[in-house]
């Protein structure tokens, strides 16, 4: 099964109004080549799920600042001032989720769970509209699973099967998102012949397509 995709073929997999999970933390571990392609295709009304709003010239900041994002689900938007402006003016809906809750909502979306119970956010505006359950004498918020149409990830080493190794702090949300979407496309820094099976961080069964990063 050949999973390699050219950046031009990416067109077949994206459409206006779709939801996309984007790996990366302050754009570290974000597939910049795929983001640039989405920018060029100018797909619109996207719902993006990402740790943050990127930076103005980096990561999903480029898509936000180009007006392609209808809804952003993230934990932090502070490094991209335009995201705050668009949120303030109502041009972009921003749903802020505590970072650990975002991770677990994605994980539960990919792991077949009905959500997670977390103490994070109790007594704050995060709890508004959510169910509080008392378990063994302690209160928890019920946080629901998150899924999306597509995940775009950044792998450091990807073999031709689609097994992924992430290096250093580029890993962050990437392996979680790999499990939680209908389709997964990874941008590979290097496509390699062999990865030690013990070192695989995302099993290839999750990965649909591999795009080689342009150097």
């Amino acid at each position, binding site marked *: 099964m050949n999973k390699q995709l050219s950046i031009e073929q990416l067109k077949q997999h994206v459409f206006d109004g779709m939801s996309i999970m984007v790996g990366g933390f302050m754009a570290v571990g974000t597939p910049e080549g795929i983001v640039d392609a989405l920018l060029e295709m100018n797909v619109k009304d996207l719902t993006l799920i990402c740790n943050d709003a990127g930076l103005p010239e980096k990561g999903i900041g480029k898509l936000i600042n180009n007006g392609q994002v209808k809804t952003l689900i993230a934990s*932090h938007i502070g490094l991209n001032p335009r995201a705050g402006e668009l949120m303030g003016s109502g041009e972009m809906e921003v749903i802020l989720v505590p970072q*650990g*809750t975002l991770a677990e909502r994605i994980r539960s979306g990919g792991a077949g769970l009905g959500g997670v119970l977390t103490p*994070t956010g*109790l007594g704050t505006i995060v709890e508004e509209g959510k169910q509080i359950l008392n378990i063994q004498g302690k209160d928890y918020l019920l946080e629901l699973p998150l899924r999306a149409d597509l995940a775009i990830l950044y792998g450091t080493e990807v073999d031709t099967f689609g097994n992924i190794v992430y290096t250093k*702090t580029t*890993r962050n*949300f990437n392996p979680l998102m790999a499990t939680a979407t209908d389709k997964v496309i990874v941008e590979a820094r290097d496509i390699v012949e062999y990865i030690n099976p013990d070192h695989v961080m995302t099993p290839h069964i999750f990965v649909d397509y591999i795009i080689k990063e342009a150097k």
Partner: protein
Amino acid sequence: MDITAMKHLIAKRVAKEFKDGDVVNLGIGLPTLVANFIPNDVTINLQSENGLIGLGPVPQDNIDYDITNAGGQPVTMVNGGMYFDSAMSFAIIRGGHVDVTVLGSLQVDESGSLANWIIPGKMVPGMGGAMDLVTGAKKVIIAMTHTNKGKHKILKKCTLPLTAKHQVNLIVTEMGVMEIQDDGIHLLEYNNEFTLEEIQDATEAKLIINQPKIMDLEE
């Protein structure tokens, strides 16, 4: 005292709170300075919520852009350090495996609630990992200037949207060290550049003052 001197004093005092082997998460800004003052006989494991333990100093050259802190800035890793994904990172944080977290704050109140993630209509950066950190860490230390240019930050009740309820254990400012207990805020140590009266005047909440020690700022 100028603001730089204040921040250094606060960071130096916070650094005395750690025990050898502690897992510690330092917030962005003033809390980051604490790493410069760790006593020589104490080794701590610095955790960064983007996915590592073993955070080292900011590199001067040979920068590796794949190693970053939670602000996205390049950092280094010390011997024995390791990387992990965001679910593991927050299992460490929320699961009670972080001994101490040090954060800045806009407001703290006498019930140990804090507000540091949003000023409605003005500043909406988002909570990032702060809500999880203060909820999950065993000890929460707030490191901040005592007032915002004279405006009270240590309050009877926070007025800004909360980051978490009843989670703060210790507040360290340029004026002193305060512990939140069930009956309110106890002034444990004070900086003798200030009188106790001046410290109370700079604090909206009523401080419980019972023979406080002089703030320990020895190197």
